[in-house]
């Protein structure tokens, strides 16, 4: 199981999204995980998706459970902000998933990005 804990779920452009990933899979199951800060669109149009920052982290097979991985993702000053319009929404989230041979469903935590 993966849990994402954010220090704040609302940040401004130019600030940093900080928090921690609490990883409770059995150690032998996965050796590596990946965390991404992404923005994406929803609405009438096709989806745009872009990761802004990412971090890989190694799972220690000898560590006790659960393992904790802190992260800090700076948001660029000219990134898109969270937006809820008529045909289009721009949304942000932190997503974490195990590095595996098959694509695993990610664990996600939404954040709101405000202008500077």
């Amino acid at each position, binding site marked *: 199981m993966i849990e994402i804990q954010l220090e704040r779920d609302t940040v401004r*452009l130019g600030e940093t999204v900080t928090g921690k990933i609490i990883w409770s899979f059995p150690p032998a199951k996965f050796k590596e995980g990946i965390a991404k800060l992404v923005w994406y*669109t929803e*609405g*009438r*149009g*096709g*989806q*745009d998706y*872009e990761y802004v920052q990412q971090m890989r982290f190694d799972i220690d097979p000898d560590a006790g459970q659960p393992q904790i991985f802190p992260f800090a993702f700076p948001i660029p*000053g*000219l*990134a*898109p*902000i969270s*937006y809820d*319009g*008529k*045909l*289009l929404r*721009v949304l942000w989230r932190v997503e974490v998933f195990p590095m595996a041979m098959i694509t695993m469903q990610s664990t996600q935590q939404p954040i709101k990005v405000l*202008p*500077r």
Partner: protein
Amino acid sequence: MTDQVIKLGSRKIERYHFPQKHPEGYVLVDREDVWTRTNTILSVIFFLVLILAIPGIGQAWFAGELDLVLMLVVLCLGSVIGLGLLGRHWLKSNKLTPGEIFMPRFPLRFGEDFTLRYRRKLRHKQLAKPGQVQATLLAFEQVTYSVQSSSSSSNDTRTETATVWQHQFPAQEVPAFASEIEETYHIQIPRQGPASFEGQLNAVRWQFQVTVNLPGVTKDASSFQLIVIPEVVT
């Protein structure tokens, strides 16, 4: 800021939307109003195609090569349409200089409050009758999506737009005997946005649109894309 790349989404803002720095401020020119070298080259190509294809139709007809006749006729029709469109554009650009706007700042921010100046000159004559200028500042969303084509197995691409903010300025009169149009507009970008956004399939754009109606000369519209970054004026 104009030397930097502005990326407000997954696509860079096209450089032709960047204004030129000028002693009077930042100047944006409506590229649709400009007669370019490409237009001249295309006109020459279409003209040469016509000159060469018309005698060829006669020769092919008498030689009984009906497939070649059909191909040359289609080529001639395409060239005539191309020349017609370019001719209309040339006539318009020959009557008025390209529309220009002057802004004190670039890019714009949320809560920005400034005076924008619009200018367009008549190239050859003065106005015989009074004209009118109408300007609108608007923000709109543009989204692109695919739908299954009803006639084939392929997908059709559709685009939809929706205006999310709009301010229409009162119409201004251009007096008779004027040889240029020059109007100023008080612009207020709302403090809550929206910001310009450019994705691959979705966009939010700000546009300043001006329609000029000059009786006896022309009726034409100019549009200028403004860049509003997500930063609040303090």
